[in-house]
């Protein structure tokens, strides 16, 4: 016991803060913290001074003032009498619309090209290589600008669709005469119902019962189909016989939707030339189309590379083992390669989805009024509140990115290999 007491007690000296590794970490952290706090205090102080000089105050009250500008593409009702907050919502929805459609199309195209690039067909794989390298190595801004310029300067004007006597019209509608691409926009057919179910508004956002009915019927059909497939699988595992399911699936998936359509009298409102312009249908602005097309083409090249790398990452032994078991190439892909490749593919795919979402802000190049165009563009210029608008916009983009990455990470966790 005495020995223990005799051990020289480490008395704390100030120099130990630097030289003793036990304390050094604390010293460094405190030092860093003070520096960072001082930096932010300096920024805050400057901001307050600058605001005082300009006679402004930090205030989000302007969000509830009249916006006074029009937005071409609106997914919720908006007029120039609406508030800046409403304009923000419209812009945010426009951002989300391009981002969501872009993710879907880019994934489909990217997977197709990635798989084709691995094809044994020499010609096709070379073509796909050219595609990938061409779109990857050129700024996305070029594709956006080029798509927009081509759409708005090369396409015919509505007048050209008019048939004069004895003369063929200079331009005609595409896709069986349902879609008209003019220099003012793309006219596509709009779904209409004869007996709408009505709707109501929550906080200015309209809820349409007709749309809701279609969504719920489709979701229910898919859920029922999943139940049928699960039941079939359980029976197969129990008895070894798989009951025929294809006709049940077809029935469950299609009959309810068709029945609902018939009951509500669904039909398509096809755009038609009336006077000097097309009437009916939906007019899709070229800014939207150009942004969507360019983002899809650009990102699909990256997704193709991700898919290719994911498939190549699975060792050859896996497919050889599957062939040895007697699986056909298609089944091998479906049952052996893809489930393993997905684990490699999904994390980089998440960051591509985030990239699409962030790249929608390039819509500014073609005057697409997304979140950046409304809140960070016209609202900012009209009210002169740079600080508030920019901070709010960054917060929204940050929330959006973090939400997407959280959701996708959940999905990622569900496909990852469970290691116990």
């Amino acid at each position, binding site marked *: 016991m005495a020995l223990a007491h005799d051990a020289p007690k480490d008395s704390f000296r100030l120099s130990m803060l630097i030289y003793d590794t036990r304390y050094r970490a604390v010293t460094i952290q405190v030092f860093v913290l003070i520096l960072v706090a001082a930096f932010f205090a300096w920024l805050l102080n400057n*901001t307050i001074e600058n605001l005082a000089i300009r006679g402004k105050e930090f205030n989000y009250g302007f969000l509830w003032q009249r916006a006074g500008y029009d937005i071409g593409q609106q997914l919720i009702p908006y007029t120039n009498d609406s508030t800046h907050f409403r304009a923000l919502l419209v812009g945010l929805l426009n951002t989300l619309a391009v981002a969501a459609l872009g993710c879907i199309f880019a994934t489909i195209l990217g997977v197709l090209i990635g798989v084709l690039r691995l094809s044994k*067909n020499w010609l096709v794989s070379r073509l796909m290589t050219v595609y990938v390298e061409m779109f990857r190595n050129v700024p996305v*801004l070029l594709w956006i600008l080029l798509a927009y310029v081509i759409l708005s300067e090369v396409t015919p004007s509505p007048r050209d669709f008019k048939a004069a006597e004895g003369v063929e019209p200079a331009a005609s509608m595409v896709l069986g005469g349902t879609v008209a691409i003019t220099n003012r926009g793309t006219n596509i057919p709009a779904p209409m119902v004869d007996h709408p179910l009505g709707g109501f508004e929550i906080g200015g956002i309209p809820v349409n019962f007709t749309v809701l009915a279609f969504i719920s019927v489709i979701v229910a059909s898919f859920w029922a189909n999943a139940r049928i497939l699960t039941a079939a699988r359980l029976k197969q595992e129990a008895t070894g016989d798989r009951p025929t399911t294809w006709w049940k699936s077809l029935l469950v998936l299609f009959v309810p939707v068709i029945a609902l359509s018939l009951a509500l009298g669904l039909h398509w409102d096809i755009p038609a030339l009336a006077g000097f312009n097309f009437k009916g249908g939906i007019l899709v602005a070229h800014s939207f189309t150009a942004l969507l097309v360019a983002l899809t083409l650009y990102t699909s090249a990256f997704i193709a590379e991700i898919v290719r790398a994911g498939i190549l990452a699975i060792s050859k032994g896996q497919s050889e083992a599957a062939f040895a078991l007697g699986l056909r190439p298609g089944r091998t892909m479906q049952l052996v390669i893809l489930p393993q490749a997905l684990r490699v593919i999904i994390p980089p795919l998440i960051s591509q989805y985030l990239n699409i979402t962030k790249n929608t802000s390039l819509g500014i190049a073609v005057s697409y009024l997304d979140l950046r165009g409304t809140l960070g563009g016209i609202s900012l210029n009209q009210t002169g509140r740079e600080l508030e608008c920019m901070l709010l916009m960054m917060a929204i983009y940050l929330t959006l990115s973090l939400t997407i990455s959280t959701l996708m990470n959940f999905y990622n966790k569900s496909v990852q290999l469970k290691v116990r």
Partner: protein
Amino acid sequence: MSEPSQTNFVRTQMLPPSPPPLREAGVVRWLRENLFSGWFNTILTLFGLVVIWLLVSSALPWWLNGVWTAGSLGECREIIAKTAGEGASGACWAVVRERWHQFIFGFYPVDLWWRPVLAFCLLFAAMGPVLFAGQKRKLLILLGAVVAMILILVTLAASAVPNEVPGQTDAPFVWKLALALSLLTIGAMMALTAAGSGKLLWFTGLYPALCFWLLWGGPIWVPLGALFGFVLLAVVYSSLLKRAGPGMAAGLGLIVALVWWLFIDAPVTVALNDAIPFGLTSVQSDEFGGFLLAITIGVTAITFSLPVGILLALGRQSDMLIVKTLCVGFIEFIRGVPLITLLFTASLLLQYFLPPGTNFDIILRVIILVTLFAAAYLAEVIRGGLAALPRGQYEAADALGLDYWQAQRFIILPQALKVSIPAIVSTFIGLFKDTTLVAFVGLMDPLKGVTQIVRADIDWKGIYWEPYIFVGAIFFVICFGMSRYSMYLERKLKTDHR
């Protein structure tokens, strides 16, 4: 038994091998295996052929009918109609011939073009020893390519400039380009002789200041003053290294350098310039444009984002909670917002965040923001590399008695960086492509800024394929070159046997 004559035929000689069946040899076999091995493959091939036919049949006449000499789009169309017949399509490359200098230099003064050209040439002399250490043949190829590029540029300049750019005397212009070229040759010689030993590394360190001086001009004391700060840093670091350890020494050196830069540098520079005025004509930032601007921003941001990214990645892996939290917060914030919003912050919000009355150069602000942006992405990439290292490497470094920085420098980072080369280079490619976004804060990038100006000209109104193809092709060459370089580097650094 029986006589030998009655036995069956016995061959005493080898037959020469017969040629393989026609279907299994040469072109036919290759075609069968690669293009027509089954009904699905055949359909794919036919589909590919149709696509190629559509592309070629619509684009080839357009390329072949291209016109290089014309004053406006209308003139182009007349020439095409005359040579290829009415209604034929044709490219009007005359716009590139007439406006190439804006795509390359923006509004940089014509008689000072030799400065960016020289800076660009010296860039290769500065990069050579770093990029192709010990590879004389590669360096030779690189330099050959650059010389070829410069020659093309000079030819274009000689043919186009005297007619098109008003208000410049062409004798000093050509003379200065010639000077730049001869300096380039000297630089190339130096690079070649010193490549193997890395003797030219001092030049790589000196290059940023030199490049800044060449591009922006002004008194020579400004870059020298900035360099002196680094010299101070190095002196303090090496004198304190033994006593205080690398971290402390670097920190103190940085503080001394900062004090120099913030408080002493400016008065000393002014005084020196009054005493010995020596400098180049200064060029304002708003005269920069085109690929000059893109390459300036891109190269600077690439150079500075790598060290910042490495520090951020190390901070994120650190055991120190506060440092780690700060790094994670910074990285996630930068990665969560689009670059455009950060650029707008640079142009709109910095006036709020800085002390009243401060105003600094827009290109510098953009470079800082782009650097931070790329650094956050790089940090994530390098973190992946760090995470891929087996735990044993860290433990082995500890067992050898290396301290934190030694372990990082000699054991951890060389391996982690090697693993992450492809991802690092693709981040750099992304950065370079993102330099086009500076158009949105009023700078003249080659894509939106310059092309917009060209397309707004009454002579070239309605032209779209040609300028975009020209700009896109240059971007493609640079980005594709970078990705090929990363493949080369991967092969060169590969140490495992497969």
